[in-house]
């Protein structure tokens, strides 16, 4: 295990940021800490980095108990949401900073820095200042800087949060490709469920200072353990006590044993290939079902129609 966190608690005054959190991060994996604001994901990351100290608990990195170590001694690479670029240094000096701290010979630093600048595709920018780079370029520089010291683990705190949507998507896939190439143990904090699903091998969903579930993107989507995880990871529709994915709701013209409810079609939205059908059940509940264009055409769905809802797969969570 590259990182082992055991029973970590952390409060800020009255606010409980981390509530008895434990997690294991396998070496070479890309794990996402996913959750809404205030869920504790950034705090957990910073505890692992040594930028926050836990009230109780233990942090092990590469098998070594790092809990008492300051960030300097943990061998972590940290990338901040707002880049934390050293404004007064060039890109080259930024990337080489960690190496010059370790008093490496100039030639070695130069070689390594050039290698990394090439890796993150910032060739030609080496002598520019961060203020002359775009947000995406700055973040790539920050990544190169963190990788330069060959950290045991790479920690990314909402690294794409400050970037435009387009740049965010590009960097997301770029990060994934980089990880496939370098296989650096990486932990990524994000509130963007799509990002986590796209980039990570393993996702830990957090809420209110607790880890709700850890699993692969597919596991979380198909087998969520509670309402929070199911709601956070993907769209849901509620039928009484059951939670169903909109695309798991079959629409039938006639009643049957499997039908869970009867509903009236309110709107039919054609979103390209998918069709979203907005429904109101007899009980007055409003929900959406998702079906294909062909299926919708076949049924001839239009507002005012009465349909029966057959959930193909649903989950019920006890309190």
């Amino acid at each position: 295990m590259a990182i082992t966190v055991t029973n970590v608690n952390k409060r800020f005054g009255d606010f409980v940021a981390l509530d008895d959190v434990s997690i294991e991060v396998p070496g070479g994996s890309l794990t996402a800490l996913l959750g809404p604001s205030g869920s504790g994901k950034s705090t957990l990351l910073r505890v692992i980095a040594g930028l926050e100290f836990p009230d109780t608990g233990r942090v092990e990195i590469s098998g070594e108990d790092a809990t008492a170590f300051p960030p300097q001694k943990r061998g972590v690479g940290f990338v901040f949401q707002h880049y934390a670029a050293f404004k007064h240094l060039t890109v080259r000096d930024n990337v080489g900073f960690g190496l010059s701290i370790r008093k490496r010979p100039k030639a070695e630093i130069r070689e390594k820095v050039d290698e990394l600048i090439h890796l993150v595709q910032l060739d030609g920018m080496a002598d520019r200042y961060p203020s002359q780079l775009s947000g995406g370029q700055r973040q790539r520089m920050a990544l190169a800087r963190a990788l330069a010291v060959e950290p045991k683990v790479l920690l990314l705190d909402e690294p794409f949060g400050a970037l435009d949507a387009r740049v965010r998507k590009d960097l997301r896939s770029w990060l994934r490709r980089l990880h496939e190439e370098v296989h650096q143990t990486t932990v990524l904090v994000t509130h963007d469920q799509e990002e986590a699903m796209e980039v990570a091998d393993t996702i830990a969903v957090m809420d209110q200072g607790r880890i709700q579930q850890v699993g692969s993107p597919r596991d979380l989507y198909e087998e969520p353990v509670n309402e929070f995880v199911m709601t956070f990871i993907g769209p849901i529709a509620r039928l009484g006590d059951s939670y169903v994915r909109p695309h798991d709701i079959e629409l039938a013209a006639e009643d049957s044993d499997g039908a869970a409810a009867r509903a009236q079609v309110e709107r039919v939205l054609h979103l390209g290939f998918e069709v979203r059908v907005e429904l109101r059940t007899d009980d007055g509940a409003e929900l959406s079902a998702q079906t294909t264009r062909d299926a919708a055409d076949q049924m001839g769905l239009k507002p005012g129609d009465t349909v029966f809802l057959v959930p193909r797969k649903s989950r019920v969570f006890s309190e």
Partner: protein
Amino acid sequence: MSTDVVTPRPPRRSGRLIAPVGIGVAVMYMSIIVLIPMAALMGGAFDEGWAGFWDAITSDQAIAAVLLTVKLSLVVMLINAVMGTIIAWVLVRDRFVGRGFVNSLIDLPFALPTIVAGLTLLALYGPDGPVGINVAFTEAGIVLALLLVTMPFVVRSVQPVLLELDRDMEQAAASLGAGPLTIFRRIIFPNLMPAIIGGSGLAFSRALGEFGSLVLISGNIPFQDQMASFYIYSLIESGDRTAAAAVSVLLLTLSLAALLLLSALERWTSRHAR
């Protein structure tokens, strides 16, 4: 039918005359208060031509006074650069009882009359002072007075920069292995440099022309501890207004040159921000 092209005229507005009249009055004001006296200063300095000007500023007493003034002002500037930064640091990064009070106090030298400033120092560090130190009529006394009147410049220049400093940079440096001293030396200090330089320039410029706080403390002995402002004063009293004007022009030039130089240095050290 005429085919004249009629260019539209801007509509008449009720206040159209206000701006020109206002500007005219402001210009007259500036002239009476600043421009004409400064012109008279220039004229007076060259009343006896370049030769007269040159003689006045190269007289032995003039050189002694100016050199002393520049020397002590440089010393004061350097002390301010260090202490001002430390004070700014403590006011921004530290927390202690009375911090707000001390912070307000820093502005006091701006508001305190210079003669009173000198008097307070003389009370504590003069012949009747309770701590047994007597800096009256010494260079140390002059330095002390100059330090008092220039105290706020570097502090107020550095404080806002410290407040705005991206703390993430320090944490990033820590995660890359830098200890606290290294972080200060390589991350914080370079980013404070422009502000320190700017504040130091203002302090130097102020010290150069200081008068009131030195009146009671300085012995004003020619060639020994006479500052430039006092030399000018003595020239005025003795009626040699040409020489007084000449040395004044020299002092002003030095002050402006220092400000320009340090301003350029400030811009150079912050070139990364452009």
